[in-house]
């Protein structure tokens, strides 16, 4: 076993949280080591292109298809969900005990899941931080929107978010005077504008309230037109062979309709863009280094080192054991991986809540045919949403929700256009000019909504480890228990009903017919079967709170028990509201970085 040199800070995980913190800490002159479990094949153009070719050549173009896992650092995959006929499902990386399947995945490659995210960068609403005070549910966060607001500003600049602030002042969201996003909003698609013309302002009853529907541009971490003075940030920073080069800025969004799973032109932010800006003189990056144990001093409870397994061949489990030590340790490995590493190290926290309170945004699809050609399958995967059901008194009774409005036809739901072609050729027996005409008509009218529904923290939904389930390196695999509760089911019903009303108003023929043929987990509520999918929004596994008894970290994401240990990421979320978690976890990470810099400056 060999020991690496002494660092000021050791960070586990080079996803968005780890990258942003590494950039800020090295910028302050701190000596930082970043350990990344996966391969570092995202820093040169040649390597990135290989991932793109892997995607093109894949028969099944799922979320992880461009990002195959290393043998030593396995990851969940959408295809895992249907390998087992009964619970526990053990064929994939996760051991799923149910009763419902957790439908989301993540990537263990340099850059993490930002390699395949959509880029939606919504702020959480002020009331999302106060679910107990406002609705008598769950717990309040130990911080308020106002605390995080300046860090939201910073995160939007760090990640390069495109939006017009004038569009984003709704449901209590406020911005500091004179603030605007670093880049102009990504233009709405033609189908967004057609839909907006048909439904904007339509009233929908939600409990005792009447809600006015609006098709709205959402903030997206995709390059558009920079506002004056803003320079987009780049990702590719080495040539083949690893020699540093001037970073490539990525292109403006070119409408590849492939934010998920890979942006071919690097217009959509990924964490390598931040990592590329870290001060190289102060940063040591070790890829293919799987953290396996956190070592703690028995008396002080301070972390003394991180043990990790370093491998050379991504297709082999052959490795050497090494030790990394520093003054401060930051787990930025992912909501599931942070909890897994803590539990694998025997660190449960005083509250016994490490791993507990796992959330997602279980989501339904609604899909239909517009009355005329709306130009489907063009543009970023989506450019707009319906945000009006994210807030309201109705949250006392059921979950809030938001709609993502697709530009990608029925690709995400039925697997169109392939399935549309199959149906026309094999079922309808069409061929020739009639086939061509039919497909032109059908494909160009396809409309899709994703209805992402809020989920509250439930301590029984959790990540644990079990020595009988290990990966090929011998590291314990995440064991997941997950159940969707009535609050979320009622929200799903409300969301589905709103989708139907919007379709009706817009003259869209509702084609949302689920069947076992579609690759979605199911759950039953009041005799009805719901086909849901994960949004990749893992959260709550090391939730923050105002005291050690009911949480794992404080509001700076510092462990209550281990004074030099931070657990960062969406695992720290107390509740998650309806916004996609990346921007909020980025803002929290920047706040933590500032806190650590201040703490170390004081010699603490």
């Amino acid at each position, binding site marked *: 076993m060999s020991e690496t040199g002494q660092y000021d800070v050791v960070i586990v995980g080079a996803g968005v949280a780890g990258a942003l913190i590494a950039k800020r800490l090295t910028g302050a002159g701190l000596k930082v080591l970043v350990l990344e479990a996966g391969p570092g094949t995202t820093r040169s153009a040649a390597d990135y292109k290989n991932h793109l070719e892997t995607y093109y050549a894949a*028969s099944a173009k799922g979320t992880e298809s461009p990002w195959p896992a290393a043998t030593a650092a396995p990851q969940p995959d959408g295809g895992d969900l249907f390998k087992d006929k009964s619970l526990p499902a053990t064929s994939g990386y996760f051991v799923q005990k149910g009763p419902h399947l957790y439908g989301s995945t993540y990537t263990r490659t340099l850059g993490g899941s930002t390699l395949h995210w959509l880029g939606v960068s919504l702020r959480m609403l002020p009331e999302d931080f106060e679910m107990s005070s406002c609705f008598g549910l769950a717990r309040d966060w130990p911080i308020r929107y106002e605390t995080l607001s300046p860090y939201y500003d910073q995160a939007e600049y760090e990640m390069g978010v495109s939006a017009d602030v004038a569009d984003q002042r709704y449901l209590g969201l406020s911005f500091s005077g004179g603030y605007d996003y670093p880049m102009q909003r990504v*233009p709405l698609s*033609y189908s967004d504008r057609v839909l907006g013309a048909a439904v904007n302002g339509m009233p929908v009853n939600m409990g005792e309230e009447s809600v006015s529907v609006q098709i709205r541009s959402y903030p997206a971490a995709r390059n558009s037109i920079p506002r004056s003075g803003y320079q987009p940030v780049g990702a590719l920073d080495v040539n083949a062979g690893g020699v540093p080069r001037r970073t490539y800025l990525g292109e403006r969004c070119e*409408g*590849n309709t492939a934010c998920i799973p890979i942006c071919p032109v690097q217009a959509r932010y990924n964490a390598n863009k931040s990592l590329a800006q870290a001060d190289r003189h102060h940063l040591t990056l070790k890829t293919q280094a799987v953290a396996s144990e956190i070592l703690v001093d028995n008396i002080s409870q301070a972390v003394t080192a991180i043990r990790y397994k370093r491998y050379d061949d991504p297709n082999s489990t052959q490795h050497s054991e090494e030790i990394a030590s520093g003054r401060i340790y930051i787990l930025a490995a992912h909501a599931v991986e942070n909890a897994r590493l803590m539990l694998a190290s025997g660190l449960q926290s005083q509250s016994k809540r490490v791993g507990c309170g796992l959330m997602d945004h279980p989501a339904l699809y609604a899909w239909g045919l517009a009355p005329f050609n709306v130009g489907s399958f063009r*543009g970023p995967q989506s450019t707009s949403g319906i945000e009006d059901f994210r807030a309201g008194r109705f949250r006392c009774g059921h979950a809030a929700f938001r709609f993502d409005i697709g530009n990608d036809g029925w690709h995400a739901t039925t697997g169109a256009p392939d399935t549309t072609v199959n149906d026309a050729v094999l079922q309808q027996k069409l061929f020739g*000019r009639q086939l061509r005409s039919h*497909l032109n008509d059908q494909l*160009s009218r396809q409309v899709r909504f994703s209805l992402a529904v809020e989920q509250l923290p439930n301590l029984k939904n959790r990540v644990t480890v079990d020595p009988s389930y290990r990966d090929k390196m011998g590291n314990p695999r995440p064991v997941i228990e997950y159940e969707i509760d009535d609050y979320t089911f009622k929200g799903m019903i409300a969301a589905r009903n709103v989708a139907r009303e919007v379709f009706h108003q817009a003259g869209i023929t509702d084609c949302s017919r689920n069947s076992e043929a579609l690759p979605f987990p199911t759950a039953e509520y009041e005799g009805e079967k719901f086909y849901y999918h994960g949004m990749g929004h893992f959260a709550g596994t090391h939730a923050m709170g105002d005291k050690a008894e009911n949480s794992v970290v404080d509001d700076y994401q510092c462990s209550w028990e281990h004074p030099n240990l931070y657990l960062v990421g969406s695992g720290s979320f107390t509740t998650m509201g309806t916004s996609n978690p990346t921007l909020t976890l980025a803002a929290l990470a920047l706040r933590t970085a500032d806190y650590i810099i201040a703490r170390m400056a004081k010699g603490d």
Partner: protein
Amino acid sequence: MSIQNSRRNAFVALSAVLTGVQKVQLFGTGQTDAYLATLERILPADLLDELLGRFEALAGNDGIEAAVEPQILADTRLGALAQNIILMWYRGVWRRLPDDWRANFGSFPEDENHLISAAAYQAGLQWEIAGAHPIGARHQGYAAWCLVPERPTRRENA
């Protein structure tokens, strides 16, 4: 004309009728040889020649489309092959022949579902017919998604 050239010409002529897309556009995908090679790799030569021969016997008729339906697509043996040719051009994939077809007419070791190649994925006619581009490739450019979709010409959709 060599056997290979005549087979290629027959294949493209048949493909144009089956897909409703002109021969010159099919050639423009750059996939003609790859798709013919796929057929040759998976199917016995006599079966492929029978399909192409059946088509050539119909060629020259003004109502070729009307003739292809009963003579080829409705044929219990040749119909599935013709459908697979359509799927190749539209999607870039080979579809495993149906189980009852395999039971009646033979099973071939390479007759399995697969994407023919990364290039075939991008060349699938389905994208252009939709007025779109293959997901993840051949992007249309910044803000092109705002443009009003163009209606297909009457000739194309006749």
